[in-house]
């Protein structure tokens, strides 16, 4: 499953760091944090998708505490 979320991220460097952090999570097929379109696109297996999404949000908050992701 592949889905996009609106993601408020303030700087391009942070976006790159978030992307890297999410891609390191086990079970993530691909993740993109797009600073230009302010979107997070996450692809992972259906059955573990929700867990991975949670982990991804946590990973983002770790990089930038202010970042907001609409789910």
């Amino acid at each position: 499953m592949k889905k996009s979320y609106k993601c408020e991220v303030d700087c391009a460097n942070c976006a790159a760091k978030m992307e890297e952090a999410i891609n390191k999570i086990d079970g993530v097929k691909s993740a993109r944090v797009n600073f230009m379109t302010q979107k997070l696109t996450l692809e992972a297996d259906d059955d573990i998708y929700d867990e991975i999404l949670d982990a991804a949000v946590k990973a983002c908050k770790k990089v930038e505490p202010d970042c907001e992701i609409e789910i």
Partner: protein
Amino acid sequence: MTRKMKKTRNRIIGVLAAFIVLLIVDHIGLFEGLSWPVIFVIYLIPYIVIGYDVLRKAFINISHGQVFDENFLMMIATFGAFAIGEYSEALAVMLFYQIGELFQSYAVGKSRASITELMSIAPEYANVIQENGEAVETDPEEVTIGTMLLIKPGEKIPIDGIVVEGDSFIDTSAITGESVPRRVTEGGEVISGCVNKDSVLKIRTTKNYEDSTVSKILELVENASNKKSRMENFITRFARYYTPVVTIGAVLLAVIPPIMGLMPFADSVKRACIFLIVSCPCALVISVPLGFFGGIGASSKLGILVKGSNYLEAIAEASTLVLDKTGTITKGEFKVTEIIQANAEISKEEIICIAAGAEKFSNHPIARSVIEYHEELHKNNDALADDNNELTEIKEVPGHGITAKLSGEDIYVGNVKLLKANNIAFKESDKPGTIIYVAKGKVFIGTIIISDTIKEGAAKSISNVKKAGVSKVVMLTGDNDDAARVVADKVGIDEVYSQLLPADKVERVEKLLADNNSGKVAFVGDGINDAPVLMRADVGIAMGSMGSDAAIEAADIVLMDDDIGKISAVIKIARKTLAIVKENIVFALSVKILILFLGAVGIATMWMAVFGDVGVAVLAILNSMRAMKWSKEDMNG
């Protein structure tokens, strides 16, 4: 401005006012006589007001193991300033950092908004016609295939469909960049994203919203910034090393000179702080992708979809342009242009009549053109005998043509090979185009010449492409050599390769790729049978034919209205974008390096350092915005 930005703005205004008051008070000497802890606290309060979020983030990030982000750097730099007793400097640096950040996010937000504005083709609603005839506003995503929609004048067509009722002009410019409205009538196809201009249309949807042209385009353009160019990747990698290296430099600068007794500790710390402030790579990390995003936005405004920054980068370096002939340079519409009688006894009408009879079951474009010509002839002249149904035993000889019988006599309709194989004496034609020879009863009776028409403006498009910097234009075609040469000469092509099968085209492009040691090879095709070649070339450009899926899928760049005149436009946009990006990289790095140098020798102030960080970023962002600006002259000149 978002709420967050407004809050920051108010904080900045308040602290700025306080800062000015403090400066005045300090200047008239009111702080003299106060002990340092008191002055420290006086400055610390506004410092905390303006910088608390930076400090907070810095602490959180350190606890997460994220050192070296800009918050941390600002914190260390300003703490350093406090430590050496430069209280007003510390407050000023934090204040101007925040002002810069605000400008930066405002500028980025603005440019992001104006780029998305360029692509404001998404429909907000669809008017679904209910059984009772009333139209109800519905979310386009909820509309199923086969639903009747009402489109009033001035409204966007939300979903692809077929006109059931009505007759109107639609503005396709948002999709194709073509400003002349297109007329649609009953039975005609309409594409989402176009605007209905003058009268009410009823359409039946043929696709779901997510498969409609508009959402496909949006998805494509949005994802385009995910495919990063070499330049962007370079900057990302560069940023990863730049900050730590400069920070280590700062530490060394703070520690070594005082140990060696070269300068007092306070001086070296001040210089180190300047290093820390300049060590943020923001200017580059934001302005580079923003420039590419702008270039992609500008292209999409013209009806050119670029699928990634990397392709924009590649097309800017195009030195060889390879074009497919049919459907790209020519319209792909075959027409009978000439009929030549072998002798005066058999009329032109009879020749075409026999040929059309033989070809009547074929769907080949060449055959269709003969049949159409024949039908046209009959429509205009009732007196013509219609003997074309009397042909029997119609047989197709692959690669040769067709044989049949007409009242006992053998009929041959085909190419040179067919007549030679049957030992029929004939006069070979040297006319350009596709040639059909017709023979009746072993006697050659005539020749039919079929040609494809060259697109209007093809010659100008090719000369524009050359002006834009492409040095070699090559044409590939499956057609015969003569037909290819005539077209090539008319439009100004440098090299022609004819009689190629699809596999030969791939081979040809591979050879061109191998021969081409400077620049990139771009291939332009209509996307239906050229998919392998589109994939193989450095940049594959396809004719989108208003939403042809195969083309959009295989290509890197899609010309939505099949106009090859757009190729020079996209090359120019790409070159401009790259030039802007390079300007930004050179500008930002040279300012930063200059400030680092001046800081090391003690000439630069912290104010200069703040400019080197956020000021440079704002200027670079403003410069990047130019990438999305496009004018008519850019396209034609």
